[in-house]
């Protein structure tokens, strides 16, 4: 793999650290700095006072053996062998030896197993062949070095199978009545597993899985005061979604307790796209999700959006159908950032980025993100970059 990129990452991270620490010109005499440099070092006046957290970062030391144990567990599902441990211990160049072992782990057949496990867990889907196939699709894209964006755009083979004994992926087309598939967006398992009233659970899953934030997903540059206490924060026109006043049965325009539209402005523009799948994930010719009113009748389009409104991913990203939604999502940089953040958190042992609010500032993985885009959304290459990053090998 590319050694220069690794050094770039280290350099970028050092720059990032400086940027977070006040005046960058006063930085530079960290433990790893060249003692012979012309920098006179911090003076009494200029010396920045490090926070305990900055000190903790500064005090980390490289430990390729510890990094190897974690990399082996995450990438192969097992501990490193004694031979591998000794190869690090006795290496003249531990960094290169470690990087070669990470490459070997990613090439190991067991890597496919860990990817299936990782993605099933990420998607919260598993336990049946149909549910497993969502995670299997993601793992297949990773193992085969295909763009991860195919999770949102693939038109064929979106219900693959995986044999853990042979580590072989077999493409299978989903059979749920969809004419043109869009990766997991039209997946029968996803649509069945996350079925709910008005398709909102499907929408939430899409948002949290691929954008890595809970709703509200969009913010207007300036909030709009609806009353003395209610602020409308979404960028859509307030009345662009339905309420009692404009024809809907559910009052998404209510703001007595909270402003429903802050979340529902985005949700309601996406939900109709998922509303035609029934509770088994089969596409229907009619809207097939119930409405939570007496008798639980099917939802009508007017319950989400007033006449004239169209569906979309975001206020500036319309999408007339699920393939279009997949296309605009896969072009959204925030979706790519989410993929990188998930890889980062997995490597560093964090909880789910949404469920545990384990946020990762974009600056932390900027180098890996840029490489991910440049490499055509190759997640396998991204994992190599993350597991060999300067932060990963320091403790």
């Amino acid at each position, binding site marked *: 793999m590319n050694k220069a990129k690794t050094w770039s990452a280290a350099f970028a991270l050092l720059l990032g650290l400086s940027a977070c620490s006040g005046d960058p010109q006063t930085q530079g005499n960290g433990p790893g700095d060249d003692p012979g440099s012309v920098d006179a070092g911090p003076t009494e006046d200029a010396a920045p006072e490090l926070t305990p957290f900055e000190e903790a970062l500064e005090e980390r030391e490289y430990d390729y053996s510890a990094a190897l144990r974690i990399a082996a567990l995450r990438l192969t599902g097992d501990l490193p062998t004694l031979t591998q441990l000794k190869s690090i211990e006795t290496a003249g160049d531990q960094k290169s030896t470690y990087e070669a072992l990470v490459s070997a782990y990613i090439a190991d057949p067991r890597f496919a197993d860990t990817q299936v496990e990782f993605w099933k867990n990420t998607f919260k889907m598993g336990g049946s062949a149909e549910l497993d196939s969502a995670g299997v699709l993601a793992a297949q894209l990773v193992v085969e070095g295909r763009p991860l964006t195919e999770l949102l755009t693939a038109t064929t083979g979106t219900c693959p199978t995986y044999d853990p004994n042979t580590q072989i992926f077999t493409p299978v087309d989903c059979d749920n009545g969809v004419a043109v598939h869009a990766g997991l967006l039209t997946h029968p398992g996803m649509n069945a597993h996350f079925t709910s009233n008005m398709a909102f659970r499907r929408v939430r899953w899409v948002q949290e899985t691929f954008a890595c934030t809970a709703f509200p997903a969009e913010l207007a540059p300036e909030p709009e005061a609806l009353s003395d206490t209610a602020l409308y924060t979404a960028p859509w026109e307030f009345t662009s979604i339905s309420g009692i006043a404009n024809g809907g049965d*559910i009052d998404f325009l209510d703001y007595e307790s909270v402003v429903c539209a802050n979340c529902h402005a985005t949700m309601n523009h996406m939900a109709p796209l998922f509303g035609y799948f029934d509770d088994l994930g089969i596409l229907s010719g009619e809207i097939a999700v119930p409405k939570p009113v007496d008798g639980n009748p099917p939802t009508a389009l007017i319950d989400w959006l007033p006449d004239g409104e169209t569906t979309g991913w975001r206020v500036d990203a319309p999408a007339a159908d699920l393939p279009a939604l997949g296309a605009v999502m896969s072009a959204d940089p925030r979706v790519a950032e989410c993929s990188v953040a998930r890889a980062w958190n997995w490597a560093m042992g964090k909880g789910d980025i949404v469920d545990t609010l384990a946020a990762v500032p974009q600056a932390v993985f900027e180098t890996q993100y840029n490489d991910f885009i440049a490499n055509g959304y190759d997640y396998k290459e991204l994992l190599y970059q993350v597991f060999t990053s300067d932060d990963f090998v320091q403790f």
Partner: protein
Amino acid sequence: MKPTKYILLAFALASFGACTDGDTLGGNDVDDTPGNDDISEPDDTSGGEDNTFEHPGGPDIWDYLERLAEEGPPEFSSRMHSCPKMTYERIGNILQSRGVDLNAQSDLSAGFLWRNGAPALGAPKLEVRSRESTEITTASAAKLFDIFAQAAPEIITAMPTLAACTVGGVGTEMFTAEGACTIDGIACLTGVPATVAHLELCNEMVNRASTTTKGQEIAVAALAAAAHTCE
């Protein structure tokens, strides 16, 4: 207000309420839907009588703030390794590669305990949309030690023949002929190079037991359980 704080505030507010339904609703929240009895989630927020829907709950904002205070802002904490619970599958892989028969039928065998210990070990429940926990609990730690306690004799016996513990064609013994711990044995068991401190601790456990065999088994179980408490 900065956008991130704005989002956080909006998120917190959204967690405490729900949309009204005008006059047409009568407490028909999500889980009143016929056939949808199984789709509520443990952290859902309940709707109020007659005027709200059930909405999904979110992370505990106070836990989050406490974590921020302890671990620092994400700019720092995201760059530090965390210590997540060893996943259920990886525990099985480690046991197997270190010589444990996962298919053993005895109800006191490590394999049996692992196969039947998924709930206590925090395995995912994906069929109900629940991910594997990354949190270490008292129950999961206790179960892990139980498993390694039962696995210890198998590991000690198998280690010299294990591919994972073989270097240059030569197998590794966990203990010398005199009963002392070996540094390579500890390394292969824990997955990190063993230190002198590891060796001394291991030998102390062996020496303080009523018999050498018991001491060796306690040492292996304790070292493995401690090392594999988290990843």
